[in-house]
């Protein structure tokens, strides 16, 4: 029997296939189907700090501040007691508790925040609700040309530091690919107490509506090609850091997952493929993975992990700049294009 188990954030997981933050975890039935299909853990949909703030604002406006100072309508508030409503945060905490109650796999809460206050405030409550770990998605767009890369990095580290002081459960950071020195930065996070990093976040891309000339955020499902960037960086980190490594973005097949593991990932996150083809796909990927391991006579995932990392690759320079040159050399223009 091949041992698929893996260690992630100090948790022993049955296999390296973990659905990433997505709407799939909003629904208990879907979550159950994922578990039944073999998901080793579940990263919940992201709790957005802005959404919570907006919902609190809306509630405050609707319940408490609907006065316009007119004698006939001194309030538009429909109920005198607002204590009974469920906030966005309540919903999330409730869902954490429900999933914990109903599933036997670890549940990782995902928090997408902007302010240090928010992280600490909500992180603590997520821990109390029963989350096994926290995945922090720092959705920070460094658009300010007067802010240096070092300042951006120290912002992350500081956030993590504060949260570590507040919660005891493991914390993993979901990172953007846009850091100039990913390795160095991951080491800083590790030093600040991160138990893992998840590579990489896929940002919403602002699109331009040609008719209205408005900017509209878009997010399309990933393609397997995107996994390669992640694989590249996991390969580079493997062996250089002690924290857990996760690949997220572009894992659609067993082959994609195997490559990530070979590069050194502890887990691979799945999202687009599950959204597209249903939770049961995870089971098929697991079966395919088993088959490949069997065919290639691997006894365990542990054995496979990092076998083609930069440290162990047959030609480690292939991960470096040489690789770029090689690829460019091989590229041919379509016929008829003059160059």
């Amino acid at each position: 029997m091949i041992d698929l188990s893996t260690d992630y954030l100090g948790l022993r997981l049955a296999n390296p296939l973990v659905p990433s933050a997505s709407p799939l975890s909003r629904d208990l039935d879907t979550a159950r189907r994922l578990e039944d299909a073999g998901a080793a853990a579940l990263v919940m949909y992201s709790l957005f700090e802005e959404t919570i703030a907006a919902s609190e604002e809306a509630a405050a406006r609707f319940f408490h501040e609907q006065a316009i100072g007119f004698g006939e309508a001194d309030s538009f508030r429909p109920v005198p007691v607002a204590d009974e409503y469920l906030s966005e945060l309540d919903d999330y905490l409730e869902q954490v508790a429900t999933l914990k109650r109903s599933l036997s796999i670890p549940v990782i809460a995902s928090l997408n925040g902007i302010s240090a206050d928010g992280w600490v405030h909500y992180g603590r409550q997520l821990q109390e609700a029963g989350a096994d770990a926290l995945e922090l998605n720092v959705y920070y767009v460094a658009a300010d040309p007067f802010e240096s890369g070092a300042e951006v990095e120290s912002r992350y580290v500081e956030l993590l530091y504060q949260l570590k002081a507040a919660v005891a459960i493991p914390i993993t950071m979901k990172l953007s690919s846009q850091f100039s020195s990913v390795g160095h930065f991951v080491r800083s996070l590790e030093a600040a107490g991160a138990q893992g990093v998840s590579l990489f976040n896929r940002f919403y891309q602002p699109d331009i509506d040609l008719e209205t000339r408005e900017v509209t955020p878009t997010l399309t499902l990933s393609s397997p090609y995107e996994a390669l960037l992640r694989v590249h960086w996991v390969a580079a980190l493997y062996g250089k850091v002690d924290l857990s490594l996760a690949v997220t973005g572009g894992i659609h097949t067993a082959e994609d997952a195997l490559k990530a593991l070979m590069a050194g990932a502890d887990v691979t996150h799945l999202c687009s493929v599950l959204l597209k083809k249903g939770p049961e796909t995870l089971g098929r990927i697991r079966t395919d993975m088993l088959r490949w391991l069997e065919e290639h006579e691997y006894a365990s995932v542990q054995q496979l992990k990092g076998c083609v990392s930069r440290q162990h690759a047959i030609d480690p320079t292939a991960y470096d700049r040489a690789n770029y040159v090689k690829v460019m050399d091989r590229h041919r223009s379509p016929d008829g294009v003059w160059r």
Partner: protein
Amino acid sequence: MNAGSWLTIDGNEATATVAHRVSEVCAIYPITPASAMGEFADAWSAEGRKNLWGTVPHIVAMQSEGGAAAAVHGALQAGSLATSFTASQGLLLMIPSMYKVAGELSPMVLHVAARSLACQALSIFGDHSDVMAVRQTGFAMLCAGSVQEAMDFAAIAHTATLAGRVPMVHFFDGFRTSHEVAKIRAVEDSVLRALVSDEQVHAHRARALSPEHPVLRGSSQNPDVYFQGREAVNPYYIAFPGIVQATMDRFAALTGRAYRLFEYHGAVDAERVMVIMGSGAEAVHETVDFLNAQGARVGLLRVRLYRPFDATALLAALPETVRALAVLDRTKEPGADGEPLYKDVVTALAQSHMGGDPKFGRLPRIIGGRYGLSSKEFTPGMIKAVFDELGREQPKNGFTIGIHDDVTHTSLEWDAGWRTDAHTGAVQALFYGLGSDGTVSANKNSIKIIGEATELYAQGYFVYDSKKAGAVTVSHLRFGPRPIRSTYLIGDDEAQFVACHQPVFLQRYDMLDKAATGAVFLLNSPEPPERVWDSLPRRMQQQMIDKRIRFYTIDAYQVAQDAQMGKRINTIMQTCFFAISDVLPRAQAIAAIKAAVEKTYGRKGGRILEFNFRAIDATLASLHAVPLPETATSGFERPPVVAPDAPDFVTRFTAALLAGEGDRVPVSLMPVDGTFPLGTAAYEKRNLALEIPVWEPELCTQCGKCPLVCPHSAIRSKLVPASLMENAPENFKYRQALGRDYPQDHVMMYQVAPEDCTGCGLCVDICPIRDKSNASRKALNMAPIEPLRAQEQANWAFFLTLPEYDRSAVKRTTLKGSMLLEPLFEFSSACVGCGETPYIKLASQLFGDRMLVANATGCSSIYGGNLPTTPWTVNAAGRGPAWNNSLFEDNAEFGLGLRIAVDKQTEYARELLCDLRERLGEDLVAELRAAARPDQQGDEQAIAEQRAGVALLRQVLQDIDDPRARALETVADALVRRSVWIIGGDGWAYDIGYGGLDHVLASGRNVNILVLDTEVYSNTGGQMSKATPRGAVAKFAAGGKPTSKKDLALLAMGYDNVYVAQVAYGARDTQTLRAFLDAEAHDGPSLIIAYSPCIAHGVDLSFNHRQQDLAVASGHWPLLRYEPARAAAGKNPLRLDSAEPSIRYREFVETETRFNMLWRSHPDAAETFLTESQQEVRERYHRYRQLADLPPEPPVDPAARPAEPPIPPTAEEDGS
């Protein structure tokens, strides 16, 4: 004995908390100032609060007060304990049922927050006009004079009615008592339990209609017995005062609070006594104590049980020493020789005197007077004046006190500066805030804090503005060691604390007139402490020096911003109050404020709580004491209220009201019949906008959308000859007119009225044009009003001097063209971003110069006709919409009456034309008669010709010496086509006025009905109507409205001659324009149902257009036009103007708090409602689609025979 725990609540809540505990059924309908009672009852039942018998009372919201009364009547007849709450016109609508309830001796209590009646004008404020109109119904009437009494008397009334079977009106003064927050003792459950007899409840049940022991009740009687039947109830009425007194005595034994039917207070040997009921008695009590302490011998006789009137008890209560009585009525009975209470007292004394054993050796002199109508102030100075009058040789009878009657000279003079010592040792504080800045709610909290944390008595009263946008609130707070009986506002030189929460008020109000010597003045100002002095007008500086004011300032908006509180400054200002006023130790006060914030936002407040705490903590460091200089240094004064060139009436009358000095307006200045000039809103410059739109002429395509959507008519277009631009101010913008419809030598301009703009930004939002090189720049862009204000003021002034484009040359069917028509509805006091006013303004542009408007009571009657000013205005020729608001319930019928009268006048004019044919000339007569035919189209060309014809007619008539010519002169104007508009909200059209609306639709008369559908009762604070969509949260529907919105359009289409349109200008403006034009042109009833986003929807109204768009795209609001004229032309009359729903219903409801809040409070119900609504909009669309796609019915061939002759009904089937 259980005196009860301390509560700090208002009169409405005090009353409702008793009523809810002793009732099983409450039938409710909103009306100010009673709405809150029904709302409390509804909310408590919604959260499962039980009555005395352990069951949750059932609350039913009705379509009118008439409906509520009838539902209560039914519930009583079926043996339930039933109640209702109302006021004013609502009470009048209940009268028919009240006779029935009393005639059947059904025990019930109707709680009334007594309010003025609509006579020469509507008023929402307090007096006894309404309750005096029901004294003949057979209901007993018990009057509470304070918040404590409102609670106690609610308990006594519910108990006594069960014991004596006489139904009761329990009333108290609207606003003064209903809305006063006071520290009182609760009536605990145990007290109610001990009072209310289960045996009597069971007896009531036993009398109920039941098929188990059936009876006939409500028979019709003939001359033989009806009279006797009326007299049969006498024993109950004779016994009832005794029952009420006995109940009061039991109540006293239970609580320690003793009451008498008529209660005397004052000197035992008083010679002069005032008789009064209601809250005024409290002020009299206070004044009597003060006068007697100074050696006067005066007294107060307070009337508690007004009906049945127990003359014996009245006489028994009066000291034998009384020589003169003044009876004060808070009502007016025009034409009577005295008001009701006065006449009752006179009768009681006269009867005693005529009887065998008179109470008085000599009949005391009795004078009657009126006071306090519509919450007019009733102060110790006035009360003293009445006592003084009583001491005169020949005191005035039928006097008034509190006004200056320089016409019939009824009024008594009084000393406005006269004070009692009631406030020695007390704190009086005044707070000037904006309606939306939370000042009132913070002050209510402060009262609670002080009420709960100290031994002090507390009182809070809140004076509201008549405006919705930028409303001003003044909070009057008192705290003191003795019970507070001062049922009047804090007067000049009295307040020890004055707070100005908005710096803009420095320009508007003389706030320090109210400040006492040595008072604290707290100012929220962006100016730093060292410069704030210079921002004060000179008069205010001088007052500060003269009164040795202690001056504090804080930049509360900065503190709020730093604490991420946005513009919420209420807790910051509240902290300042406690920090400076020393009512409580600072630390205790701050802890209490935080606790109150926590209570307000609840445990779900999340970070808003933290932000508040942060702001509270940061406040003290930002609060600065400012030392006063020796002399006033300011170089400016508060600007005049209206421009110096305003018309005489505006200067003398309107300006006084605007300045808050309306109390000083003498009777002679008042129009005798409630008639006021139009166009006065233009003189009230409110300067609300922080940003105004700036036009970019080179980008603009002159589409006309911005003036269309402006809720306040503050951006206008004009098309004038280019030659007129010679004298234009330097920065005045204009551009050559685009397009072929207008002369090339003309220029177009879009000009903003900077002081009337409210800064809502909707004009910029709708602007479709973007700069090709900079997408963020449109043809209109918002920019800070400074430094533009002065420049744009000059530009606006110049714009107003430019002529209007010839109406008959305007292409009305285009937006651009129609927006060249002058709006005759401008600068209303509607909310910023109001979704209703653009429709009204559009109608005024298209038809205003020949428009008659019947306006249902509601938001549109308030922003349309609440003094001091009106947005309805006139054109250069002096023509404009003639406007009246009859009532809430009768608007359609009222408008129909206008139409019928106009039609009759037209008919009469046509007849007179015929009669005078020979003198007038055949041609003129034929032309005028033809033009005035009802089927004539009302296009501008035709109107111009009709007007020219009438002008010519008038000239000719001058020379005709014939009585018929004189008669024709009076009706000649009716030969010009009139446009009758019946305007109101959904509360009117769907609920209270629906019966009348239906009848008017069926009448076939040419009226135009505009329903401004906000899908909720907006004016009274957001109660559910039948227009409220399924799943929306509203008052009376806290769990989401479970039923669907009534399809008024479909119902109206049931009549084949009704033009029906459903429009949403923010989704499709041209369809709206087309509908207005076609509706008006239709010779028959027209109904336009207009989607109107409202603040009650819980959306930021700067997204008004987006919400309209979503409503249409989701299928919530299908756009349609049903045109009978098309049917006549052999086409399908229905046109569906919006496409199949293109977005999910969820996408619409998620954007509005009225819907999405339900996911937070009742998530399962919300999902169910959503599914149902999604299904419903789809089905409705397909139903409409099918109707619109049906091939038209071929016209009936008169020669064709019916297929089967109808079968005549049998005798059994013929139910007639």
